[in-house]
């Protein structure tokens, strides 16, 4: 399981960084989304994957062993929610920029850097 996830994380990082360096708006957004997913999966994997041991304590209060660590999932949940909001904003911003500037080519956006 870990092995598949590691490959997947690598692919997502590669694809994300590649897409972020493209000139088209849409591809940049997709790149950002990939990077977010890659980071989430990374937390999931390094948080140790334990199968078949839910993170509940026994009825008498004793702690079963082994017990899964629920914290990475909680972190990912928070990160997904934040990422969702930020990506939604980014999409609206890029659309608005497309309407105002009239291009979806990032290389055309040199106005703020010109001397």
């Amino acid at each position, binding site marked *: 399981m870990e092995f598949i996830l590691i490959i997947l994380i690598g692919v997502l990082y590669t694809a*994300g960084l590649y897409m*972020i360096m493209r000139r088209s*708006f849409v591809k*940049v957004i997709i790149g*950002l989304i990939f*990077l*977010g997913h*890659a*980071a*989430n999966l*990374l*937390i999931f994997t*390094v*948080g*140790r994957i334990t199968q078949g041991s839910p993170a509940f304590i026994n009825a008498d209060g004793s702690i079963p062993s082994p017990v899964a*660590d629920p*914290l*990475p999932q909680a*972190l990912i949940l*928070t*990160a997904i929610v*934040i990422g969702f*909001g*930020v990506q939604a*904003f*980014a999409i609206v*911003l*890029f659309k*608005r*920029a497309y309407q*105002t*500037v009239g291009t979806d080519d*990032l290389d055309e*956006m040199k*106005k*703020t*850097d010109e*001397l």
Partner: protein
Amino acid sequence: MLLALPIISPLFFGILMILFWKNFRANRIINLIASIVSLTIAIILIAEVIDVRILTLHMGNWQAPFGITLVADLFSAVMVLISAVIGFTTAIYSLATMDEDREKFGFYPLLQILLMGINGAFLTGDIFNLYVWFEVMLISSFVLLSLGGKRDQLEGAIKYVTLNLLSSALFLAGVGILYGLAGTLNMADLARKLPLSNQPEMTTVVSMLFLVAFGIKSAVFPLYFWLPASYHTPPAAVSAIFAGLLTKVGVYALIRVFTLIFTTDSELTHTVILVIAGFTMVTGVLGAASQMDFRRILSFHIISQIGYMIMGLGLFSPLAIAGGIFYIIHHIIVKTNLFLVSGVVNKISGTYDLKKLGSLYKLYPLLGLLFLVPALSLAGIPPLSGFWAKFILIKAGLELGEFAIVAVSLFVGLLTLYSMTKIWNEAFWKDAVDEQDIISIPGTLSQKILLFLPIVFLGLITITIGFYVEPFWNFANDAANQLLNPEFYIKAVLGNVR
């Protein structure tokens, strides 16, 4: 309870202002009240911290390291105080400069939420919580930057948003790996447990991940390109608060993690930081030398000044860290002030282009004087605050025998003076190309007072730090001692558990 107030108060007033959506007069008054309340809380907080050294608050009574802990040591407390000062001055300044459209579409609530995010980042003692506060800060700064929807703003915002989201993704990955290594997210607990994980190579790799993530946010070489592309596009009040506070949150985070958590391999990490500091100073100041726009010159100077702060961290001696902290305090006040002055210049002549500006000193000698105080302080002319900041850092560098970085910082100081002289010559000294363009400062007398009050206020702080340096210096020294002796911080957060 006191510790949560700098976060709760802006949140409360921000929500209150949203209830008065589009009623900009109500929003103005609430925002002013909010900033005064924040300032009061920050002063009480710093008085308390000076008294008891380190305050902690376990949210929801979940004891550290399981719950989220808020911690205020001297460094956090002074950062909260400065952000309240800047919030207060910006609140007054926006009354005179902000246009009604922006005021109607949520400028003031966003400002308060931005300050909430900044205060949260300064006060949290939990690394994942730091990520959350960064996001709160970022999303409100995204909206503040693009609010208005002008072409420049949107172009700048795209660069700003993309690079900052990249940095957030790296930060998140770093947090994840750190959790995998140490099994905790509490920063004090991390400082204790990370060396026990017995993976020094992995720790160094993660520290570099954090260096890149915070480096993007604090605009160090070679990761700063979003800053000069975006900071000169929004209205003056917005760029003033961005210039003063946002990058410094990144610097704060760098200093925090590299004095508390990643100290095991300081031979390597802090040398890397020192080299980056040198390049940041030089490239920033050279970028400024090539510009002919008031705010773009100032934006590039933010970068070169970040280099000085990072230099304090890179040298990593008590004196150097104290110098870095002193530099941050001085820089936030001065840089915000310069952006406020640039806003007044724009209000008078309708442009930031130095080629078109001129004759300002002849027509408004007072404005010239108010520009000179922060400008000369930025360049490090004695006896203003910038001189002491640079003096401490250079003394620390000489004591450690790091002559290369000292030479670089002196050279950059000279070029800073050149840039400030350029602004002075072009905007204030030379005759305007077209005299008819110059009109009197628009607005009623009360608006003029609101326009100049923040500038005078910040200028007086700069002069006070310059002439009465000893208490500020002692404070920076105490704060640096706290940072370099993390056992106090760890003990305050975790108690005596072993």
